[in-house]
């Protein structure tokens, strides 16, 4: 089976999952014991006003009708409206999503840059001091509540030391680069605007660093475990016997064999960090999906929450497919079927 067909099939398989996900989110949104309409209308609203609001949002229809409306809307790009702002959910997601994507991607990159070498060193110095240090450090940092550590780092590095800005994506007076992708780093590079690039990188660094700690431990552990396994393979002994330098063996042959498992964990972490970003964003006033999600969930505004869940589902599925494709590049033995 060739790879193009395989990818097509995987993409097609996202659809039933997303339908299931939409049923799940719809069910969650409709078990609300609270009264979202009442909340949105305000404490003084009369029955008529609430009734009108319900009609406006289709909440007076029978549940199956509401669901069919919702799911057909999803496929047509109508993801509903916020009960409060009356803005289109899909439009809001478009506005906020790039900020979260940029933060999460940066965090995953940092976690990989820290975690993979830590895992390699652990495996090379198995059960010796560097191994123990890496293990303790990774468990040490992953155990902090990220939102708390974010607060501490914000104060240390932002306020006291003044090395980094304390929040947001850019200073108020700096105009964001023209939006192509919405990722400020990419957009400013495309415009060759290195000043904006540097400024947004400085804004991004501390939030991304704090977020990356959540993934550091699992990446280190899996890299170490698969390195240890690969180091015991016969080809390693053979390569050492014919005199290939140890460093070359490690980085050229063993690491490549070990990376398959690591990549799985990295892609899983992408999803987890995307969720963790919700907490980090509230501290750094990062205008992404997190702030949007927190505000919506506190005010029982379910259309945005359903939208976020569906968006996260799509992103996670796509990341999974990309991971499978990367497998094939790294390990030619893997056949898609």
């Amino acid at each position: 089976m060739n790879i193009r067909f395989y990818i097509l099939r995987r993409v097609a398989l996202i659809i039933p999952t997303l339908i299931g996900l939409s049923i799940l989110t719809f069910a969650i949104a409709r078990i609300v014991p609270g009264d979202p309409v009442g909340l949105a209308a305000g404490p003084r609203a009369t029955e008529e006003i609430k009734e009108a609001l319900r009609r406006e949002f289709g909440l007076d229809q029978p549940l199956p009708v509401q669901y069919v409306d919702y799911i057909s809307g999803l496929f047509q790009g109508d993801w509903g409206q916020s009960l409060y702002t009356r803005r289109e959910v899909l439009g809001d997601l478009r506005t906020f999503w790039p900020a979260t994507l940029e933060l999460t991607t940066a965090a995953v990159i940092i976690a990989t840059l820290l975690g993979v070498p830590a895992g390699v060193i652990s495996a090379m110095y198995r059960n010796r001091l560097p191994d123990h240090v890496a293990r303790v450090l990774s468990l040490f940092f992953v155990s902090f509540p990220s939102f708390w550590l974010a607060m501490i780092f914000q104060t240390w590095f932002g306020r006291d030391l003044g090395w980094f800005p304390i929040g947001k994506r850019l200073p108020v007076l700096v105009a964001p680069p023209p939006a192509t992708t919405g990722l400020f780093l990419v957009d400013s590079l495309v415009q060759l605007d290195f000043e904006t690039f540097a400024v947004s990188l400085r804004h991004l660094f501390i939030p991304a660093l704090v977020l990356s700690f959540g993934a550091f431990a699992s990446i280190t552990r899996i890299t170490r475990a698969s390195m240890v396994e690969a180091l015991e393979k016969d080809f390693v002994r053979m390569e050492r016997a014919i005199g290939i330098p140890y460093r070359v063996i490690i980085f050229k042959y063993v690491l490549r064999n070990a990376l398959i498992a690591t990549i799985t964990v990295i892609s899983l972490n992408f999803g987890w960090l995307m969720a963790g970003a919700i907490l980090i964003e509230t501290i750094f006033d990062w205008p992404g999906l997190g702030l949007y999600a927190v505000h919506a969930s506190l005010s029982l505004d379910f259309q945005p929450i359903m939208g976020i869940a569906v968006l996260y589902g799509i992103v996670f599925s796509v990341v999974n497919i990309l991971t499978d494709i990367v497998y094939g590049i790294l390990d030619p033995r893997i056949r898609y079927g």
Partner: protein
Amino acid sequence: MAEGHNHPKSLPHKEGETSPPTISPARPGEGRDPGMGGAHSARWDNLARGLYRFRSNRLSMLGLLMLLFILFVAVFAPWIAPFPEDASGATNVLERLQAPSEKHLFGTDKIGRDIFSRVVMGTGLALQVGTVIILLATTIGVTIGAISGYAGGWLDDLLMRITDIFLTVPALVLAIAISAALGKGIINAMIGISLVWWPGFARLTRSLVLSLREEPFVEAAYGIGAGHARIIFRHILPNAVSPIIIKMTTDFGFAVLTAAALGFIGLGAQPPTPEWGAMINDGRRYFPDEWWIATFPGLAIWLMVFSWNLIGDGLRDVLDPRSRR
């Protein structure tokens, strides 16, 4: 809950420590199934060996000590906390926003509550939250995973598709949605988190059952006429216990973290509950000038999660010899 004003649990008799050693009586339930005797003793041998390896791992022992300390604090919280009433709504505005001092070890918050007392009184709550979430998630996940792996066919497909749906969205996002829908509060937050935490256990159990179901002893049990329930519960699941326990232990800390995150967002525990995440949220507006309000609950969360992670890491080495060599 640790905040109860009831009497301390009666301690074991002191005399017991000096009494001569006696041969311990047979554990209840043992010998009920003579056919399984051999399997049991092999299992106990493994356990003893594992215990030895766990004890020789200094980091895990450190984690265990930390956890024992936490348990001690949780049990004796009302006696350790100088102002236990501060955890249940008492206020003392005259002493608000005081920096840490001899009287208030961790300082006081905006309405004069003693942070130290609230952190101490919140210990039991955090332990309970983790326990409930993990037990609920394990029960749901192991049941679904065992049925799925054992039954196979369309039932397996159906259950795994449902599991996949939960796994496509990060747990925290769904937990936020469910807790928001159920309404703010620590109980609802626990339900919300449990409802998104089981898929991992289901996947794990299914994979274990899938391989165990092919074992000759399962076939033998089937051959002598054992029912499906008996095969699952007496023959398959006991052999799948170790990986499930590892996952329960490593997940415990993260379940506590997730509950704290919901408390921090404002969806979890509501005031005046001394929940650590909610306390951090409380102290956020006063940070960093009155840094103590948010700092100490955060350190408490860290201590709890770190101890579980150390234990989980050690257990993984003991019970899954492939993972650390």
